C-alpha cells in the first residue's frame, strides 16, 4: 500500500493551520495514487487533537509520551525515525514552518530519504513527485524533481500554499504507536516559550495601515511616510527588513513572524511581497502597493498597484491628500 504520512504540527494545545493544509493536499495525492493517508501526532495528552484529526485521514498514528510535551528536534527525530523506518511511507509531509524547518532536513539526512523543502506545489508523477518551489525571494518559481529515486520521499510544505478543500470525512482509526523514547539525556532541551513585547500601538486594531519595507532604504526616510500616514489617519507598520535594521519595533511587523492584520486599507510601500509578509496582510480589505519593480510579487496580491519610485510619488500623494482634505 502506498502511504502518505503527514506530520501534524501543534503548539500550546492547538493544531496549526499547515496541518489541515497538508492533510488536504495529502488526501488528493493519496487518492490519485490509490494509497492511504495517515497523520502522525506526537505529544502528551493528545486525545482531543487526535479526535479532531480523525475525519481528515485514514488513520491517526498517535505517539504519546510525557517527554513529547514540548516540541524538541531530538525527540521528534527519534520518534519519526522509528515511525518512518517501520511504515516506509512513500511520502512524508512536514510543514515548512519554524517547527518543520527545525527537524525535517536532519531527519531526511538521517534516514537517507531525498527531501525537497518549502514546496508550494506537489503532484504525483512517475512513481515520484513533481514539485514547485520559489527561489530568489519569491520572484521566480522553479519546477523541481527528485533526482534520487525513492521509493521514499520527503517534502516540507509552505504554510498557506495549499488550500483546505472540504471533502467527505474519512473514518480515521486511531493507532497507538509505542514511543521509543527513554530517559537518556538530550543534548538539546526545551526551556520555555516567550511572548513578544507588546508595542505602544496595536497594529492589528488599525483600520488603515501604511506599511513600509526594504525600499524605504534608511531610517531617516521614515518621517516622510509617517506624515502620509498621519494625514490619512493611518498607523505605520512594516515588513521584516525594517525591524531587522531596528528602524521600527518588532510590534510594528506584519507577517508570519510578526502580526497578522486585517485593516480596511493596507498601503504597502517599498515592500516586495515575500510570502512571509503576504501571509500577514492578504486579508486586508483593499491593498494598494507602491513599488519600483513591476515584477514585485506584491502586485499579485494588491488590488491597486503603482510602479514608481516611492521617494517621488509619496510626497505628491501626501500633498494631494492634505490639499483635498482641506477643500
Amino acid at each position, binding site marked *: 500500500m502506498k502511504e502518505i504520512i503527514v506530520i501534524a504540527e501543534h503548539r500550546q494545545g492547538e493544531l496549526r493551520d499547515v496541518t489541515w493544509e497538508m492533510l488536504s493536499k495529502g488526501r488528493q495525492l493519496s487518492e490519485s495514487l490509490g494509497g492511504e493517508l495517515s497523520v502522525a501526532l506526537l505529544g502528551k495528552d493528545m486525545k482531543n487533537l487526535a479526535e479532531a484529526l480523525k475525519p481528515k485521514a485514514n488513520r491517526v498514528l498517535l505517539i504519546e509520551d510525557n517527554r513529547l510535551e514540548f516540541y524538541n528536534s531530538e525527540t521528534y527525530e527519534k520518534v519519526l525515525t522509528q515511525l518512518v523506518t517501520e511504515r516506509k511511507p512513500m511520502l512524508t509531509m512536514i510543514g515548512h514552518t519554524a517547527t518543520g524547518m527545525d527537524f525535517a532536513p536532519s531527519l531526511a539526512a538521517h534516514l537517507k530519504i531525498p527531501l525537497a523543502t518549502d514546496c508550494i506545489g506537489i503532484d504525483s508523477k512517475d512513481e515520484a513527485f513533481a514539485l514547485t518551489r520559489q527561489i530568489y525571494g519569491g520572484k521566480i518559481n522553479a519546477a*523541481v524533481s*527528485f*533526482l534520487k529515486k525513492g521509493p521514499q520521499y520527503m517534502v516540507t510544505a509552505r504554510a498557506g500554499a495549499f488550500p483546505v478543500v472540504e471533502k467527505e470525512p474519512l473514518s480515521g482509526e486511531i493507532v497507538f504507536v509505542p514511543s521509543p523514547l527513554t530517559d537518556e539525556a538530550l543534548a538539546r532541551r526545551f526551556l520555555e516559550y516567550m511572548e*513578544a513585547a507588546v508595542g505602544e500601538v496595536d497594529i492589528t486594531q488599525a483600520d488603515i495601515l501604511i506599511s513600509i519595507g526594504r525600499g524605504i532604504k534608511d531610517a531617516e526616510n521614515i518621517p516622510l511616510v509617517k506624515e502620509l500616514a498621519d494625514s490619512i489617519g493611518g498607523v505605520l507598520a512594516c515588513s521584516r527588513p525594517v525591524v531587522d535594521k531596528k528602524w521600527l519595533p518588532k510590534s510594528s511587523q506584519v507577517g508570519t513572524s510578526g502580526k497578522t492584520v486585517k485593516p480596511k486599507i493596507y498601503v504597502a510601500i517599498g515592500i516586495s511581497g515575500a510570502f512571509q509578509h503576504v501571509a500577514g496582510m492578504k486579508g486586508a480589505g483593499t491593498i494598494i502597493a507602491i513599488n519600483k519593480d513591476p515584477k514585485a510579487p506584491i502586485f499579485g496580491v494588491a488590488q491597486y498597484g*503603482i510602479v514608481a519610485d516611492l521617494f517621488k510619488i509619496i510626497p505628491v500623494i501626501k500633498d494631494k491628500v492634505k490639499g483635498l482634505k482641506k477643500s
Partner: protein
Amino acid sequence: MNIIVCIKRVPDTADADISIDKSGKDIEKGGLAFDLNEWDSYAIEEAILLKEKLGGTVTVLSAGGEDSNESLRKCLAMGADEAFRLTDPAFAGGDGFATARILAEAIRKKPYDLILTGTQAEDDGYGQVGLVMAEMLSIPHVSIVNRIEVQEKKIKAHRELEGGLEEVVEVDLPALLTIQTGINEPRYVSIMGIRKVAKKEIKAFGASDLNLKPEEVGSPGSDIQLEKIFLPPVGEGAEMLEGKPEEIAQKVFDILKDKGGVA
C-alpha cells in the same frame, strides 16, 4: 571559543528587475550586484561578537567559485581570522544536501566549539544546509536563532517562531546554530577594511582534498534537480494606476476615500 561560519555569495535580487536566461534554468545574472547572503551577514557578525567577548577564533568557509573570495574577504575584514573556499568542477549543480556534504567534510578536519550558518540563502531558499551538516557531523542543532547566551559548555538560544512567539532552548556544545536576520547589527565594512585583508591567503580545497567521490557531490550527489524556472502566475493582479504623479495621487485619494480612509 572556536567558531566556524559557513557563508554564501548570492546575487542581490531584492530590488532588481530580474529575467530568465536562455537555458530556462536560471536568471540573467549579468547586470546583478552580488553580496554576502543576508542571513550569513548576521551569522558572521554573531561569531565575531562572541569572539570579541570570549576570545578564540572565527573561521569562514564557503562552497563556491573564485568569485566567493569577495564575500570571504568581507568576512575577514569584519574580523574573521581565516577563510577557506571549497571549489571543484565536480561541485557544480549541487542542491542543499550536496552542499552540506562538502561543508561537513571540510569541517570534520577542524576543531570547533560552534558552527553558525544563516537560516537560509536568499537565492535557493532551501533552509536545509545547516541541519544536514549537523546530522552529518553528529552534533545537535538549533535553527532560526535570534538570541544567543553562552554558558558553561552550553548555549541558551532563542528560536523565532510564528506570531512573535519565541522558543528558548539550551544545547550542549559543540553545536550548530542557524542564525535569523535581526539578531544583531552587522558591522559596516569600509573599502579600507577590505584593502587591509586583500593579500590574506584564501586556500581552496577540492573534492579529492576532502576525500569526496564525484558521485557524492554536485548534481549526482543531490536529492533534487531543477527542471525549469518561470515567473510566478500573478493571479488577477492589481489594477495599475498610471499617469503623471499628480494624476496617480488623485486616483489614490479617490480610492482611499471610497474605501473609508481620509475621513
